[in-house]
Protein backbone atom coordinates (compact mmCIF):
# COMPACT_ATOMS: atom_id res chain seq x y z
CA UNK A 1 0.00 0.00 0.00
CA UNK A 2 1.44 3.32 -1.03
CA UNK A 3 0.84 6.66 0.61
CA UNK A 4 0.61 9.48 -1.88
CA UNK A 5 0.74 13.20 -1.58
CA UNK A 6 -2.30 14.83 -3.06
CA UNK A 7 -0.83 18.32 -3.44
CA UNK A 8 -1.03 18.11 -7.23
CA UNK A 9 -4.78 17.80 -7.04
CA UNK A 10 -6.89 20.90 -7.27
CA UNK A 11 -8.09 22.44 -4.07
CA UNK A 12 -11.66 21.82 -3.14
CA UNK A 13 -11.86 18.35 -4.66
CA UNK A 14 -12.52 15.23 -2.76
CA UNK A 15 -9.41 13.32 -2.00
CA UNK A 16 -10.69 10.32 -3.92
CA UNK A 17 -11.56 12.28 -7.08
CA UNK A 18 -9.03 12.93 -9.82
CA UNK A 19 -11.22 15.18 -11.97
CA UNK A 20 -14.03 17.47 -11.02
CA UNK A 21 -17.27 15.55 -11.03
CA UNK A 22 -15.47 12.37 -12.02
CA UNK A 23 -15.78 8.96 -10.52
CA UNK A 24 -13.92 8.23 -7.30
CA UNK A 25 -10.44 6.87 -7.69
CA UNK A 26 -10.69 3.04 -7.50
CA UNK A 27 -7.49 2.88 -5.44
CA UNK A 28 -8.34 3.29 -1.79
CA UNK A 29 -6.00 5.83 -0.23
CA UNK A 30 -4.94 4.88 3.25
CA UNK A 31 -3.35 7.18 5.73
CA UNK A 32 -1.95 4.26 7.70
CA UNK A 33 0.77 2.17 6.09
CA UNK A 34 0.39 -1.22 7.69
CA UNK A 35 3.74 -2.43 6.41
CA UNK A 36 5.47 0.40 8.25
CA UNK A 37 3.28 0.24 11.32
CA UNK A 38 3.60 -3.49 11.91
CA UNK A 39 7.16 -4.06 10.73
CA UNK A 40 8.49 -7.60 10.60
CA UNK A 41 6.17 -8.99 13.26
CA UNK A 42 3.56 -10.48 10.87
CA UNK A 43 6.30 -12.20 8.89
CA UNK A 44 7.88 -13.53 12.09
CA UNK A 45 4.47 -14.80 13.20
CA UNK A 46 3.97 -16.54 9.87
CA UNK A 47 7.40 -18.16 10.08
CA UNK A 48 6.80 -19.29 13.66
CA UNK A 49 3.47 -20.81 12.65
CA UNK A 50 5.16 -22.76 9.88
CA UNK A 51 7.91 -23.84 12.26
CA UNK A 52 5.23 -25.12 14.66
CA UNK A 53 3.91 -27.34 11.87
CA UNK A 54 7.41 -28.64 11.03
CA UNK A 55 8.15 -29.50 14.67
CA UNK A 56 4.73 -31.12 15.13
CA UNK A 57 5.49 -33.18 12.06
CA UNK A 58 8.78 -34.33 13.59
CA UNK A 59 7.02 -35.39 16.80
CA UNK A 60 4.30 -37.16 14.82
CA UNK A 61 6.94 -39.16 12.94
CA UNK A 62 8.96 -40.04 16.04
CA UNK A 63 8.40 -43.76 15.36
CA UNK A 64 8.55 -43.76 11.56
CA UNK A 65 11.51 -45.71 10.14
CA UNK A 66 13.89 -43.71 7.91
CA UNK A 67 12.20 -40.42 8.74
CA UNK A 68 14.71 -37.55 9.01
CA UNK A 69 13.93 -34.76 11.45
CA UNK A 70 13.65 -31.34 9.82
CA UNK A 71 13.93 -27.79 11.04
CA UNK A 72 13.10 -24.32 9.78
CA UNK A 73 16.09 -21.94 10.11
CA UNK A 74 13.99 -19.23 11.71
CA UNK A 75 16.79 -16.84 12.73
CA UNK A 76 18.46 -16.97 9.32
CA UNK A 77 15.20 -16.40 7.45
CA UNK A 78 14.19 -13.52 9.71
CA UNK A 79 17.54 -11.74 9.47
CA UNK A 80 17.41 -12.26 5.71
CA UNK A 81 14.05 -10.50 5.65
CA UNK A 82 15.34 -7.83 8.05
CA UNK A 83 18.28 -6.98 5.80
CA UNK A 84 15.95 -6.81 2.86
CA UNK A 85 18.14 -9.00 0.68
CA UNK A 86 15.56 -11.74 0.42
CA UNK A 87 16.06 -14.22 -2.36
CA UNK A 88 15.69 -12.85 -5.83
CA UNK A 89 12.38 -13.78 -7.34
CA UNK A 90 12.88 -15.02 -10.87
CA UNK A 91 10.53 -14.24 -13.71
CA UNK A 92 9.03 -17.12 -15.63
CA UNK A 93 9.09 -16.21 -19.31
CA UNK A 94 8.49 -19.69 -20.63
CA UNK A 95 5.81 -22.19 -19.75
CA UNK A 96 8.50 -24.75 -18.94
CA UNK A 97 10.25 -22.52 -16.40
CA UNK A 98 9.93 -23.63 -12.83
CA UNK A 99 8.23 -21.09 -10.61
CA UNK A 100 10.80 -20.10 -7.99
CA UNK A 101 8.47 -17.80 -6.13
CA UNK A 102 9.89 -17.85 -2.59
CA UNK A 103 6.57 -17.19 -0.87
CA UNK A 104 4.77 -20.19 -2.29
CA UNK A 105 6.33 -22.80 -0.04
CA UNK A 106 8.90 -23.19 2.70
CA UNK A 107 9.86 -26.65 1.45
CA UNK A 108 13.16 -25.36 0.03
CA UNK A 109 14.11 -23.66 3.29
CA UNK A 110 13.80 -26.74 5.46
CA UNK A 111 17.03 -28.21 6.81
CA UNK A 112 17.71 -31.66 8.16
CA UNK A 113 18.78 -31.91 11.76
CA UNK A 114 22.20 -33.32 12.56
CA UNK A 115 21.33 -36.27 14.79
CA UNK A 116 23.04 -36.68 18.13
CA UNK A 117 22.24 -40.37 18.31
CA UNK A 118 20.58 -41.84 15.20
CA UNK A 119 18.35 -44.83 15.77
CA UNK A 120 19.03 -48.17 14.10
CA UNK A 121 15.90 -47.85 11.92
CA UNK A 122 17.21 -44.67 10.25
CA UNK A 123 15.00 -42.31 12.24
CA UNK A 124 16.74 -39.12 13.43
CA UNK A 125 13.98 -37.65 15.61
CA UNK A 126 15.16 -36.90 19.14
CA UNK A 127 11.84 -36.53 20.91
CA UNK A 128 13.16 -34.45 23.79
CA UNK A 129 14.94 -32.01 21.49
CA UNK A 130 11.77 -31.67 19.45
CA UNK A 131 9.61 -31.16 22.53
CA UNK A 132 11.93 -28.46 23.85
CA UNK A 133 11.98 -26.74 20.45
CA UNK A 134 8.19 -26.97 20.22
CA UNK A 135 7.70 -25.40 23.66
CA UNK A 136 10.18 -22.63 22.84
CA UNK A 137 8.50 -22.05 19.50
CA UNK A 138 5.06 -21.79 21.08
CA UNK A 139 6.40 -19.21 23.53
CA UNK A 140 7.99 -17.18 20.73
CA UNK A 141 4.73 -17.35 18.81
CA UNK A 142 2.78 -15.96 21.75
CA UNK A 143 5.38 -13.24 22.29
CA UNK A 144 5.18 -12.16 18.64
CA UNK A 145 1.41 -12.26 18.88
CA UNK A 146 1.50 -9.97 21.89
CA UNK A 147 3.77 -7.52 20.06
CA UNK A 148 1.40 -7.49 17.11
CA UNK A 149 -1.54 -7.04 19.45
CA UNK A 150 0.21 -4.09 21.06
CA UNK A 151 0.83 -2.49 17.67
CA UNK A 152 -2.84 -2.84 16.78
CA UNK A 153 -3.90 -1.38 20.13
CA UNK A 154 -1.60 1.57 19.50
CA UNK A 155 -3.13 2.11 16.08
CA UNK A 156 -6.64 1.89 17.49
CA UNK A 157 -5.94 4.44 20.21
CA UNK A 158 -4.31 6.70 17.58
CA UNK A 159 -7.41 6.45 15.40
CA UNK A 160 -9.76 7.14 18.28
CA UNK A 161 -7.59 9.98 19.52
CA UNK A 162 -8.29 9.19 23.13
Amino acid at each position, binding site marked *: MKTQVFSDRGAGWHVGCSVAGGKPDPVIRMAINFDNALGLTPYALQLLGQRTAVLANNI*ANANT*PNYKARELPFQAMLSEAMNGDARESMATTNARHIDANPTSSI*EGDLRYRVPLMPAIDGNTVDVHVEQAAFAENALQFQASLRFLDGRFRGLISAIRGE
Partner: protein
Amino acid sequence: MSLLSIFDVSGSAMSAETVRLNTTASNLANAQSVTSNFADTYRARHPVFAAQAVSGADGDSAEDGAETRGVQVLGIVESQAPLTMRFEPEHPLADKDGYVAYPNVNVVQEMADMISATRSFQMNVEVLNSARTLAERVLTMGQ
Protein backbone atom coordinates in the same frame (compact mmCIF):
# COMPACT_ATOMS: atom_id res chain seq x y z
CA MET B 1 -2.85 -21.85 7.44
CA SER B 2 -0.07 -23.97 8.82
CA LEU B 3 -1.39 -24.04 12.39
CA LEU B 4 -4.51 -25.83 11.25
CA SER B 5 -2.55 -28.49 9.35
CA ILE B 6 -1.06 -29.56 12.70
CA PHE B 7 -4.44 -31.06 13.53
CA ASP B 8 -4.12 -33.38 10.52
CA VAL B 9 -0.51 -34.27 11.29
CA SER B 10 -1.01 -35.01 14.98
CA GLY B 11 -4.30 -36.72 14.28
CA SER B 12 -2.71 -39.12 11.82
CA ALA B 13 0.06 -39.84 14.34
CA MET B 14 -2.52 -40.56 17.06
CA SER B 15 -4.35 -42.88 14.70
CA ALA B 16 -1.12 -44.71 13.82
CA GLU B 17 -0.16 -45.11 17.48
CA THR B 18 -3.63 -46.50 18.17
CA VAL B 19 -3.07 -49.15 15.50
CA ARG B 20 0.24 -49.98 17.17
CA LEU B 21 -1.47 -50.23 20.57
CA ASN B 22 -4.11 -52.46 18.99
CA THR B 23 -1.55 -54.92 17.60
CA THR B 24 0.22 -54.95 20.97
CA ALA B 25 -3.04 -55.81 22.72
CA SER B 26 -3.69 -58.53 20.16
CA ASN B 27 -0.18 -59.95 20.59
CA LEU B 28 -0.39 -59.97 24.39
CA ALA B 29 -3.86 -61.51 24.34
CA ASN B 30 -2.69 -64.31 22.04
CA ALA B 31 0.67 -64.89 23.69
CA GLN B 32 -0.47 -68.29 24.92
CA SER B 33 -2.77 -69.27 22.04
CA VAL B 34 -1.91 -72.80 20.92
CA THR B 35 -3.34 -74.52 17.86
CA SER B 36 -3.11 -78.07 16.71
CA ASN B 37 -1.81 -77.00 13.31
CA PHE B 38 1.60 -75.29 13.47
CA ALA B 39 0.92 -73.30 10.29
CA ASP B 40 -2.11 -71.68 11.92
CA THR B 41 -0.33 -70.71 15.11
CA TYR B 42 -0.62 -67.02 15.94
CA ARG B 43 2.40 -64.94 14.97
CA ALA B 44 3.28 -61.55 16.48
CA ARG B 45 1.98 -58.64 14.40
CA HIS B 46 3.55 -55.22 14.06
CA PRO B 47 2.49 -52.17 12.03
CA VAL B 48 4.83 -50.51 9.53
CA PHE B 49 4.83 -46.71 9.72
CA ALA B 50 5.69 -44.33 6.88
CA ALA B 51 5.67 -40.57 6.48
CA GLN B 52 2.80 -39.31 4.38
CA ALA B 53 1.93 -36.01 2.72
CA VAL B 54 -1.40 -34.71 3.95
CA SER B 55 -3.37 -31.81 2.56
CA GLY B 56 -4.03 -28.87 4.84
CA ALA B 57 -7.29 -28.40 6.67
CA ASP B 58 -8.41 -26.01 3.93
CA GLY B 59 -7.52 -28.48 1.21
CA ASP B 60 -4.66 -26.60 -0.47
CA SER B 61 -2.24 -29.48 -0.56
CA ALA B 62 -0.06 -27.93 -3.24
CA GLU B 63 1.07 -24.93 -1.21
CA ASP B 64 0.38 -25.50 2.42
CA GLY B 65 0.38 -29.24 2.90
CA ALA B 66 3.54 -29.89 0.93
CA GLU B 67 5.88 -29.37 3.86
CA THR B 68 3.62 -30.94 6.48
CA ARG B 69 3.35 -34.66 6.65
CA GLY B 70 1.53 -37.10 8.79
CA VAL B 71 2.04 -40.75 9.55
CA GLN B 72 0.37 -43.57 7.70
CA VAL B 73 0.28 -47.26 8.49
CA LEU B 74 1.55 -49.03 5.39
CA GLY B 75 0.45 -52.38 6.65
CA ILE B 76 0.69 -54.92 9.42
CA VAL B 77 3.35 -57.61 9.07
CA GLU B 78 3.63 -60.90 10.91
CA SER B 79 6.87 -61.69 12.68
CA GLN B 80 9.07 -64.28 10.94
CA ALA B 81 10.76 -65.34 14.16
CA PRO B 82 10.56 -69.10 14.86
CA LEU B 83 7.70 -70.34 17.04
CA THR B 84 8.47 -71.29 20.61
CA MET B 85 8.46 -75.10 20.90
CA ARG B 86 7.70 -76.39 24.37
CA PHE B 87 7.89 -80.00 25.51
CA GLU B 88 4.45 -80.68 27.01
CA PRO B 89 3.60 -84.32 26.23
CA GLU B 90 0.43 -84.22 28.34
CA HIS B 91 -0.97 -81.31 26.30
CA PRO B 92 -3.90 -82.46 24.11
CA LEU B 93 -2.49 -80.53 21.13
CA ALA B 94 1.05 -81.92 21.38
CA ASP B 95 2.59 -83.55 18.30
CA LYS B 96 3.91 -87.11 18.24
CA ASP B 97 7.22 -86.01 19.85
CA GLY B 98 5.35 -84.26 22.67
CA TYR B 99 6.02 -80.65 21.54
CA VAL B 100 3.52 -77.77 21.47
CA ALA B 101 4.09 -74.64 19.34
CA TYR B 102 3.48 -71.37 21.16
CA PRO B 103 3.24 -68.01 19.33
CA ASN B 104 6.50 -66.12 18.76
CA VAL B 105 5.28 -63.19 20.88
CA ASN B 106 8.02 -61.59 22.95
CA VAL B 107 6.06 -60.35 25.94
CA VAL B 108 8.83 -58.07 27.22
CA GLN B 109 9.19 -56.46 23.82
CA GLU B 110 5.44 -56.00 23.58
CA MET B 111 5.30 -54.26 26.95
CA ALA B 112 8.08 -51.87 25.90
CA ASP B 113 6.23 -51.28 22.63
CA MET B 114 3.05 -50.53 24.54
CA ILE B 115 4.77 -47.92 26.72
CA SER B 116 6.36 -46.31 23.66
CA ALA B 117 3.03 -46.14 21.82
CA THR B 118 1.29 -44.67 24.86
CA ARG B 119 3.93 -41.99 25.35
CA SER B 120 3.91 -41.09 21.67
CA PHE B 121 0.13 -40.77 21.76
CA GLN B 122 0.29 -38.49 24.80
CA MET B 123 2.96 -36.37 23.16
CA ASN B 124 0.82 -35.82 20.08
CA VAL B 125 -2.12 -34.85 22.27
CA GLU B 126 0.11 -32.23 23.89
CA VAL B 127 1.14 -30.91 20.49
CA LEU B 128 -2.49 -30.73 19.43
CA ASN B 129 -3.43 -28.81 22.57
CA SER B 130 -0.57 -26.36 22.07
CA ALA B 131 -1.56 -25.75 18.45
CA ARG B 132 -5.15 -25.19 19.51
CA THR B 133 -4.07 -22.67 22.15
CA LEU B 134 -1.97 -20.79 19.61
CA ALA B 135 -4.80 -20.71 17.08
CA GLU B 136 -7.21 -19.44 19.73
CA ARG B 137 -4.78 -16.69 20.68
CA VAL B 138 -4.60 -15.61 17.05
CA LEU B 139 -8.38 -15.43 16.92
CA THR B 140 -8.55 -13.15 19.96
CA MET B 141 -5.94 -10.73 18.62
CA GLY B 142 -6.99 -7.08 18.77
CA GLN B 143 -9.77 -7.62 21.28
